[in-house]
């Protein structure tokens, strides 16, 4: 089966900036894929090239097996993009916008699906308001809805939750997740790493136009070797146990295997020290991200 996205040797040179510097990437069908990286890493540029809004300097890009330059009609039909910028057409209501967008994709009768999308994004009460009259969050929802009018097999969201209230994030992720479960491929860029951590199966990290990491979320998280426990005692543990002082009378214990915890507890019992509190601290994507971006 052809990949949902296939990027080969992609380079994008702007007059001054080299926005993408040789990207090779494949996203399989049905994946929930995260594209992370600091500002200016080239995420939007990559998405723009997928969408045909920008042209590659070198390399090729395919969406569902269709070359974005040569077979632009099919590739654009296969792709739904939520742009990073909050743009809208002030001449129309939300529902009119969705009808017009359906028309651009060659669909005359699309009202059932439009109502479904409006409903799932919590837009139904606002559907007949002029775009100008909608709040930023509501405009963002319409932008998401516009990307979905043609039921694209591949959905790309460029920082859809930047500066957006918790309510929208919840609604949005619920809907996008259900679309992913129905088989849509989803590619997401976000600044909220915990969002990527919970949603994405696989993650690519970009820095200065290069891929610095590409792995499953689980593997990326386990790259931070070992685990850490945070404990509180009723006394001072002996230094031989290898505990480090943490914040507010807590102690930190680093270990590789969970069996090491047994050794620790046995040592504490021998020393006559009781454990009052214990908490395992799992590494999160934030740590991994910072580490990878700094070392790259």
């Amino acid at each position, binding site marked *: 089966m052809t990949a949902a996205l296939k990027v080969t040797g992609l380079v994008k040179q702007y007059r001054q900036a080299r926005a993408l510097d040789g990207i090779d990437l494949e996203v399989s069908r049905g994946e929930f894929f995260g594209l992370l990286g600091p500002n200016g890493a080239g995420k939007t540029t990559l998405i723009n090239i997928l*969408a*045909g*809004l*920008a*042209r590659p300097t070198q390399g090729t890009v395919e969406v569902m097996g269709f070359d974005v330059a040569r077979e*632009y*009609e*099919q590739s*654009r*039909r296969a*792709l739904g*993009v939520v*742009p990073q*910028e909050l*743009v*809208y*057409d*002030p*001449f129309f209501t939300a529902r009119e916008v969705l009808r*017009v*967008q359906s*028309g*651009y*994709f*060659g*669909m*005359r009768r699309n009202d059932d699906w439009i109502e479904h999308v409006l409903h799932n994004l919590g837009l139904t009460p606002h559907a007949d308001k002029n775009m100008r009259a909608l709040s930023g969050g509501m405009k963002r929802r319409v932008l998401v809805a*516009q990307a979905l009018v043609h039921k694209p097999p591949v959905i790309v969201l460029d920082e859809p939750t930047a500066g957006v209230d918790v309510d929208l994030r919840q609604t949005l992720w619920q809907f996008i997740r259900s679309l992913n479960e129905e088989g849509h491929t989803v590619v997401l860029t976000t600044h909220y790493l915990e969002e990527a951590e919970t949603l994405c199966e696989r993650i690519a990290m970009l820095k200065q136009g290069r891929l610095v990491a590409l792995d499953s979320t689980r593997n990326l998280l386990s790259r931070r070797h070992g685990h850490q426990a945070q404990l509180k005692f009723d006394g001072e543990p002996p230094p031989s146990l290898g505990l480090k002082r943490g914040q507010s009378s807590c102690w930190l214990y680093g270990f590789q295997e969970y069996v090491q915890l047994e050794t620790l507890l046995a040592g504490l019992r021998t020393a006559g020290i009781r454990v009052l509190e214990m908490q395992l601290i799992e590494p999160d994507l934030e740590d991994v991200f910072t580490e990878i971006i700094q070392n790259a």
Partner: protein
Amino acid sequence: MTGFSTLLYKELLRFWKVAFQTILAPIVTAMLYLLIFSHVLEERVQVYPGISYTTFLVPGLIMMSMLQNAFANSSSSLIQSKITGNIVFVLLAPLSYLEFCAAYLLASVIRGVVVGVGVGLATVWFTDLPLMHPVWLLALTVLSTGILAALGIIAGMWADKFDQLAAFQNFLIMPLTFLSGVFYSIHSLPPFWQALSHWNPVFYMIDGFRWGFFGHSDVAPGLSLLVVGASFVAISGFTLLLLRHGYKLRY
């Protein structure tokens, strides 16, 4: 086809929703020109024997209004979409550059024609204009407004800011339309300006248009149609070429 017709519909709606500015205002402007010029010149100037100055003036005014509005429509629509960023909705869609061009072009031609018909109807009270060759008039109208609509697409793609578009309008479109014999016959010009006018395609649009109404013109009507037709092919071809390469739209 649905893609094209939707974009056309959206473009028509865009000017129709603000018809006060886009249709009524240019009609009023044309009427002001007519009032002032015909009042001042009616008794003094007769360009063709048996044709009053007002009758002479009206076809030129209609054509000028159509041209300016055809240009204004495509150029301002594009630059607004570019500046607000909502051009992406069209660019993300699987529309071909041909559909894109045709929709913007046709919407602008229609706006030009609506304004032209409005000006024509408003002048009924001032002069009794014969309509000798209606099919000819229609053909020349479509080709001429098509040229300016295409120029509007080019200008809208090229300009990044409103003042660049204003420069295009003030330094190219306005001189071409005003120096084309709307208010006079070029035979009344000194030889140098007369020769220069023959290089202005707008002159042929207006001269040929007059012939369609009352059968008099400065140059043979066939030549006008030839020049206007050739200009349309050249300019719309060039526009298509730019659109195919996504000039300043897909960077």
